């Protein structure tokens, strides 16, 4: 898919193969590091704080990133793009800023702790939570979402795709359900933003939480929230207050967007990298990136299925999941496998519970967890074949 363009290598400087893209994507696209360096060297004044040309130039770059994010996600108004530290920050803003004691929330049993921990904290403050069970392959029946709605239900929170086994959740159907019942939908797009088409209007998404450092291929420390057109921001309280560079004569938080939620100096250096990454995604096309990852995922799934003693979790269908594959090797603990993969075969992956105990309960791997290969756009078929060779060797040793 990338012929004719400089392609960063998925091998580390010592030759290891990086398969941990579901945690943080690596390498980054051409131009991302250069954009960061260029911003630092030429324009890294404080955006939105001063009126001089360098500050304005920095603010212009941040605004451009808002526009590119809005465009990528089908959001009509760039001023409704709220930047924060990462997706956890954005999810916390919605859950703590939108919900009140007495409210009810519907979520799934495949959620990451970025969702579950704030919800459990809110339960102790009088918010009630229904966690709709998913099937052992992680699928969610949208009818069960609708059946879980109560008179006090205010919000549906769903991950777009499992960070453990890649299974996609039916967010568009959930959006239709939410709007039919005049409640709201928050989507955790940590695993999908940039690799799956997301259109907030067509998908009926009210709150879209995204992170920059995974499938958007930007640096860590970037991410945010996009508010859908149905959301009255008066109903979403900021969860931190502070300087915004605006209305400095007042000691109270401004009410307008995006300043209402963006106190403190933003990570403009990171956003310069994220902007370059999103431009790269747009130039490649989300569909082309997805197509490459489906091919990689399919080769890995087919190869794993041929190895005796391997249990694969999730849908086991490349077209119905992200390129994140959870699996185990019979007789080998995930942590032992990870060490062997790293030290003997130079394969870098993540094992354990992946900050998602609910999801591991659902797929039957709690508390041991599983091995996770998170594939990325810069992985190659040779990477997959090398990984399959390693798994075949480890599995053979214990049979």
């Amino acid at each position, binding site marked *: 898919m990338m012929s004719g363009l400089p392609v960063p290598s998925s091998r580390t400087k010592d030759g290891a193969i990086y398969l941990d893209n579901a945690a943080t994507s690596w390498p980054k696209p051409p131009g991302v590091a250069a954009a960061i360096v260029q911003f630092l060297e030429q324009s890294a004044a404080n*955006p*939105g*704080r*001063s*009126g*001089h040309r360098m500050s*304005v130039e920095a*603010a*212009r770059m*941040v*605004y451009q990133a*808002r*526009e590119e994010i809005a465009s990528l996600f089908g959001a009509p108004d*760039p*001023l409704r793009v709220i930047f924060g530290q990462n997706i956890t920050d954005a999810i916390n803003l919605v859950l703590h800023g939108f919900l009140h004691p007495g409210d009810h929330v519907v979520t799934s049993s495949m959620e990451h702790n970025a969702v579950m921990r704030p919800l459990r904290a809110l339960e102790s403050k009088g918010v009630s939570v229904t966690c709709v069970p998913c099937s052992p392959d992680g699928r969610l029946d949208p009818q069960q979402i609708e059946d879980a709605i109560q008179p006090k239900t205010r919000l549906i929170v769903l991950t777009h795709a499992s960070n453990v086994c890649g299974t996609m959740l039916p967010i568009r159907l959930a959006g239709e359900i939410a709007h039919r019942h005049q409640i709201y939908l928050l989507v955790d797009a940590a695993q999908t933003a940039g690799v799956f088409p997301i259109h907030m209007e067509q998908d009926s998404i009210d709150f879209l939480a995204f992170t920059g450092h995974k499938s958007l291929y930007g640096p860590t420390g970037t991410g945010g929230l996009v508010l859908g057109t149905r959301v009255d921001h008066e109903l979403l309280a900021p969860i931190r207050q502070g300087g*915004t*560079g*605006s*209305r*400095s*004569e007042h000691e109270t938080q*401004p009410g*307008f*967007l*995006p*300043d209402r939620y963006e106190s403190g100096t933003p990570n403009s250096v990171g956003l310069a990298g994220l902007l370059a990454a999103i431009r790269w995604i747009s130039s490649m096309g989300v569909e082309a990136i997805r197509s490459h990852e489906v091919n990689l995922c399919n080769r890995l799934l087919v190869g794993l299925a041929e190895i005796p003693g391997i249990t694969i979790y999730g849908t086991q269908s490349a077209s119905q999941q992200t390129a994140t594959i959870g699996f185990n090797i019979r007789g080998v603990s995930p942590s032992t496998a990870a060490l062997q993969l790293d030290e003997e075969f130079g394969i870098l992956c993540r094992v354990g519970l992946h900050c998602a105990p609910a999801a591991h309960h659902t797929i039957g791997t709690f508390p041991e967890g599983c091995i996770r290969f998170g594939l990325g756009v810069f992985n190659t078929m040779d990477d997959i074949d090398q990984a399959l060779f390693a798994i075949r060797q480890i599995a053979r040793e214990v049979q």
Partner: protein
Amino acid sequence: MNASHAVILVDSTSHALRIEKLFQASGLACKLIPVPRHLSSDCGVCVRCNSTDLPLIHQVLDDARAPYHSIEIL
């Protein structure tokens, strides 16, 4: 600055940048400048433009429903 300028006061630098992009797309000359102290105590920026462009300025702002605080003639 001279008498032929108008400034659009905004709540946020982000709002000023949105207006800048709208004006650029419409061929309207503008420049982001620090807010003149006699107009506001805010420490941010505003959008300076030619007062002769005011009819088109109003039209562009209204069409895009771009948020702004006020337009002042200098």
